[in-house]
């Protein structure tokens, strides 16, 4: 058999398997006859036969981080329950695909002027709200304007500061004009705050009713307790296989896991890393362990001694054993960091930058050069930052001893950490949620003058490159720019980035997905309701 014949044969076989027309035994028989090894055939059977989505069933979800104080206003979304709810009941202009790329949602296509300062989004003509009304340009304009202006309380305001005008073109398209070029604007439209909702007469939006244009309609909802959602038959997207989705708020990690083990729920978000080894022995439970763009950062204020010396900063970066931290604190469920805030789960990831290793000897010599041998520094942390945050800091202090550095771990109260410690203390531990692109991340926390420039780092070349990259539509050039920026942040920046924690969640083994899971949020970028299905 020639290769093309073989491919044709395998495609046929896979199609037959997907339709359920042939048994596993004959599939294996034929594919081995076609020249495949047994293990390759098994893999193909799993990905083709089981990957046939089908309609039906009620998915029961155990969701962490839901509160009585959750609400419908998308500008104030903050909890994981709200984000999951946003992606189940509401829809956004664009979405992050399971492979991490950008895909269409309410907008079916978009284009920009060559300077990337004017973007036009064309609305999918099938997009329909739950009350039967079509989504119009006016709805999109009102939905985005909800997050702009002086009186908005929206947490997404900072995302849209560059927006000068949002115009309804009247032909089912909307044009957004920016004060400067931004090649990432379509990525920003995936932000969980920017839900598309029905407009009122006066240009505000109707967020109070819970109506959206997402894959599921709300039947009942009590914040802090849970909700019930049924399929929106007129949804414009693909999928939405479940007849009904029931979300139950279970904030206690133990209760969530128990519910998954006993089968009281079909899937559970955020599992405890400590119990992964035990859970994975249960044949009824599948665990999804997905590399993400979340990050743990340790920013040093670059304008405060001793961190104003780049040798000290780099000595501290060399004095941490990242591998051991990942193994002991996250139980292996993390991607190693290299002191630039750009995870492999984000687009334009720079290849070929040497991984910084634990090297106390070199750290020592850098400190000697800086005249700071026997350095003593305070390092603030709190339990609530991440699982084992205080343990991680203590472990870091142990590693640093080898380099003659004394790190005093200061355990701060969880309450008020973000107002009293973060951005205030010269060196502390921070957790960051996943951001869609490197530009968003660098503009938020590494640009000169940014509100959240947590390390007070100022590097002119970096800022220049950031500005260049923002308006650059050429993908290859952009990749090079982010590569150079990453290098600058790694070698000169004030932030130690030990690792990017994975998303970890679980499901009963009869709940299926394609195997690719979006790196943007828990539970397939919180699009599980439209992307997953039950095996019969």
């Amino acid at each position: 058999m020639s290769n093309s014949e073989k491919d044709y044969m395998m495609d046929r076989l896979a199609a037959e398997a997907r339709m359920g027309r042939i048994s596993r035994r004959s599939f294996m028989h034929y594919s081995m006859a076609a020249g495949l090894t047994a293990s390759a055939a098994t893999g193909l059977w799993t990905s083709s036969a089981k990957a046939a989505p089908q309609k039906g069933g009620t998915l029961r979800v155990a969701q962490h981080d839901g509160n009585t104080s959750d609400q419908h206003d998308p500008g104030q979304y903050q909890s994981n329950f709200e984000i999951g709810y946003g992606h189940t009941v509401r829809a956004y202009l664009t979405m992050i695909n399971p492979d991490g790329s950008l895909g269409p949602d309410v907008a079916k296509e978009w284009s920009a002027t060559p300077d990337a300062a004017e973007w036009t989004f064309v609305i999918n003509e099938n997009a329909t709200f739950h009350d039967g009304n079509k989504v119009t340009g006016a709805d999109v304009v009102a939905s985005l304007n909800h997050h702009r202006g002086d009186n908005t309380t929206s947490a997404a305001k900072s995302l849209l500061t560059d927006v000068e005008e949002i115009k309804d073109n009247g032909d089912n398209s909307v044009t957004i004009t920016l004060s400067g070029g931004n090649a990432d604007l379509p990525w920003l439209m995936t932000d969980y705050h920017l839900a598309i909702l029905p407009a009122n007469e006066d240009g505000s939006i109707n967020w109070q009713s819970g109506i959206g244009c997402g894959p599921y309609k709300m039947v009942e909802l009590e914040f802090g307790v849970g909700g019930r959602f049924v399929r929106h038959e007129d949804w414009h997207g693909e999928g939405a296989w479940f007849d009904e989705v029931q979300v139950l708020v279970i904030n206690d990690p133990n209760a969530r896991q128990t519910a998954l083990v006993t089968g009281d729920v079909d899937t559970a978000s955020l599992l405890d890393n400590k119990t992964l080894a035990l859970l994975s022995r249960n044949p009824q439970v599948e665990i999804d362990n997905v590399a993400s763009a979340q990050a743990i950062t340790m920013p040093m204020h670059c304008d405060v001694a001793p961190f104003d010396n780049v040798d000290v900063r780099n000595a501290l970066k060399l004095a941490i054993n990242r591998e051991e931290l990942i193994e002991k604190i996250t139980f292996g469920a993390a991607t190693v960091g290299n002191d630039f805030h750009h995870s492999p789960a984000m687009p334009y990831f720079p290849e070929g930058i040497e991984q910084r290793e634990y090297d106390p000897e070199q750290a020592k010599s850098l400190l000697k050069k800086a005249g700071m041998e026997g350095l003593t520094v305070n390092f603030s942390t709190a339990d609530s930052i991440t699982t084992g945050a205080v343990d991680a800091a203590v472990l870091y202090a142990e590693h640093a001893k080898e380099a003659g550095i004394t790190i005093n771990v200061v355990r701060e109260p969880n309450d008020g950490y973000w107002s009293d410690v973060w951005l205030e203390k010269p060196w502390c531990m921070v957790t960051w949620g996943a951001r869609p692109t490197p530009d968003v991340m660098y503009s938020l926390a590494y640009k000169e003058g940014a509100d959240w420039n947590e390390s007070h780092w100022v590097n002119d070349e970096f800022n220049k490159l950031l500005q260049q990259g923002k308006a650059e539509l050429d993908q290859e050039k952009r990749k090079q720019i982010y590569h150079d920026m990453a290098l600058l942040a790694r070698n000169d920046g004030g932030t130690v980035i030990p690792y990017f924690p994975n998303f970890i969640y679980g499901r009963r083994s009869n709940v299926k997905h394609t195997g690719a899971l979006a790196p943007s949020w828990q539970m397939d970028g919180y699009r599980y309701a439209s992307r997953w299905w039950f095996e019969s």
Partner: protein
Amino acid sequence: MGDILSLVAKRLGLGLFILFVISVIIFFMVEALPGDIAQAVLGQGATPENLAALRKEMGLDQPAIVRYFEWLVGALTFDFGTSVVTGNSVAAIIGDRFTKTLFLAAYAAVIAVPVAIILGIIVALLRNTIFDRVANVVTLSFISSPEFFLGYILILYFAVQWGMFPAISSVREGMGFFELLERTFLPALTLVLVVVAHMMRMTRAAIINLLASPYIEMAKLKGVPPWKVIVRHALPNAWAPIINVIALNLAYLITGVVLVEVVFVYPGIGQALVDAVSKRDFPIVQAVCLIFAATFILLNLAADVGSILTNPRLRHPK
């Protein structure tokens, strides 16, 4: 009877005064918590303009003392204001949840009170035997373990290993009564285990205390069987301390279920309180604390009245 009424009125007045003092304490304690409500609502991602806009919207730019009196006046008419986080009425948010908590407490009480009293009588009868010691050790070890630990143990055996009861007590509208009882059995059992020891030991102590009295001796000498001695002669005089400890435990059942509700995912008032504290939602925290305080005061009042009714001597204080 007139004496009792004036006594009850006096106690009620005192209770209201205590409630007022508690309301002052609650308000200013919550005020003194570190952090800031606008920050808590908007989270890490808040900008200074966001925070200022939200504070203004919530009325947080007013001085604390002004907000306290506005709230107190509302609370007197059972208007606890609106949640500063969501803008919904506090009464609506906690009303339904308080009913659910009351249900769970009642469920536990219906089992716990008879079991505790009967067990208390039995161990009083069989005092200093093996049975007495075993019952004491077992109930004491339950009362000494934190509720969430007991809850996890019950889940491990009854839900995970034996699959007899659901591990989570998610209840919804329109659920049948027996399904409701089944779903909430484990949290109720946890509460029962926690409160039985206290009531049982008080019953035992009160009865043993009375068994040394001359009139009991007399009854025994007359040849009255032991169980009759206890039920007819001892128990009626032992009610006062028993009623007190029952009232105390009932109050505990209502106010102390926070951890149990979290472990079993039961949508009661405890969960609402935990949420509200973490979000600095003052009106909800204050309302729930006031309800808890009022529960304690009312049940204590009931206990006092109950003991007086069962003991004629207390009706005529010297």
